[in-house]
């Protein structure tokens, strides 16, 4: 079981839920995020991660581990963070 934590703007789009539990069957970060009720706000219409999204697995930036293909073996927490931007 992996816990997924999303920012407040996404939680508001998921009836207020900020934490989700994803079944262990999810092999990659992409699998886990596609199972969320806000998956359409994380992936564009071509199935790619939205550009200004940061995703961490147990504190490690997934960009260093293949992005959506990052394996979830032994992972406990996925944290989705909107990129910091001004304005």
């Amino acid at each position, binding site marked *: 079981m992996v816990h997924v934590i999303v920012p407040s*703007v996404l939680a508001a*789009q998921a009836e207020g839920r900020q934490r989700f539990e994803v079944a262990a069957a999810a092999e990659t970060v992409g699998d886990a995020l596609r199972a969320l009720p806000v998956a359409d706000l994380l992936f564009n*219409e071509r199935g790619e991660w*939205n550009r*200004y999204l940061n995703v961490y697995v147990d504190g490690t930036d997934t960009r260093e581990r293949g992005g959506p293909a990052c394996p979830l073996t032994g992972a406990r927490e996925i944290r989705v963070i909107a990129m910091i931007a001004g304005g």
Partner: protein
Amino acid sequence: MGVLGLVGTRKGLFLLRGDDARRTWQAEGPLLDGWGVYHATVDARDGTVYAAANHLVYGPTVQRSADGGKTWQRSKQLSLPEWSGLTVNAAWHIEPGLPQEPGTLYLGADPGVLFRSDDHGKTWEPNLGILEHHTRDRWYPGAGGLCIHSIQVDPGDRRRMYVGITAAGTFRTEDGGQTWMPVNQNVAVDHLPELYPEVGQCVHKLLLHPARPERLWQQGHCGVYRSDDCGDSWDRLDGNGLPSSFGFPIMIDPKDPDTAFVIPEKSPEYHYSPDGQLAVYGTRDSGQTWESMSDGLPRPAWAAVLREASAFDGDSLYFGTQSGSFFALANGTWVEAARHLPPVLSVEVRQWST
């Protein structure tokens, strides 16, 4: 009864409720907190609120609420066919269909695409006639993108529709959207080598008069125009009494086809009130003459009003500024109904029961 203003801002949707006199207002919001609400409207057929809501990180969405904005449901993700090589950049304008087609809505979006829904906004299908238009390679984006921001359905013939595209111009269909014809004759494009091209006009807002549907009005990048023949030809109207030909919004009086209102800005290079004199200009003679309506507006003011940020509800006028003020006309005098909102992107006004 009172009036309900749906004010879309860069940071969410505000509901402003005013009394009959339009002098006392209460604000609720932000709803859809954190989303840029490019346009929000109430479907008069069933009371559903729709919002074109966009987010830098989470992308374009259409959101709908059946309970006056308390809860929202997202439409299925907007998408374009992979073969088009295009993806949806932003949702711009939602236009409910005619009373005789319940459940049908239209959505204008960036990059110059039109969607239709026949299930009350749950899902949207792109219009292929617009997507594959043979002139598309001559369309180009404005500062806000390549967007369809104006969708007008002829109330007497739902097969006849119009869209306004920045920057491609006005297009008309007479077969329910299968084919589209550019209708930009005599509409100038000052910034292209050819002054009157077939397409490439930067229409900022296009409206059809519901009681005289062959009459169209547009505020464009290069002038204010009226057509009395479904867009086949256009007359330029900004020579008599307007301080500038440039501006974004236009409003019409649903009771009087000869009446229209614009909010001029200095020029294409300087998007603010000419000489610091914020004013709405109205014509009651089809655009032959224009008169300033500024009583109650702040002076001086260098305001900018975006294309969707004004409304006429049949009784009065309303507009919002990029500096976060919302004004309502109350018995001939403008009232600042709200201030210090985030930048106002859109305004729609409906009657509501107090």
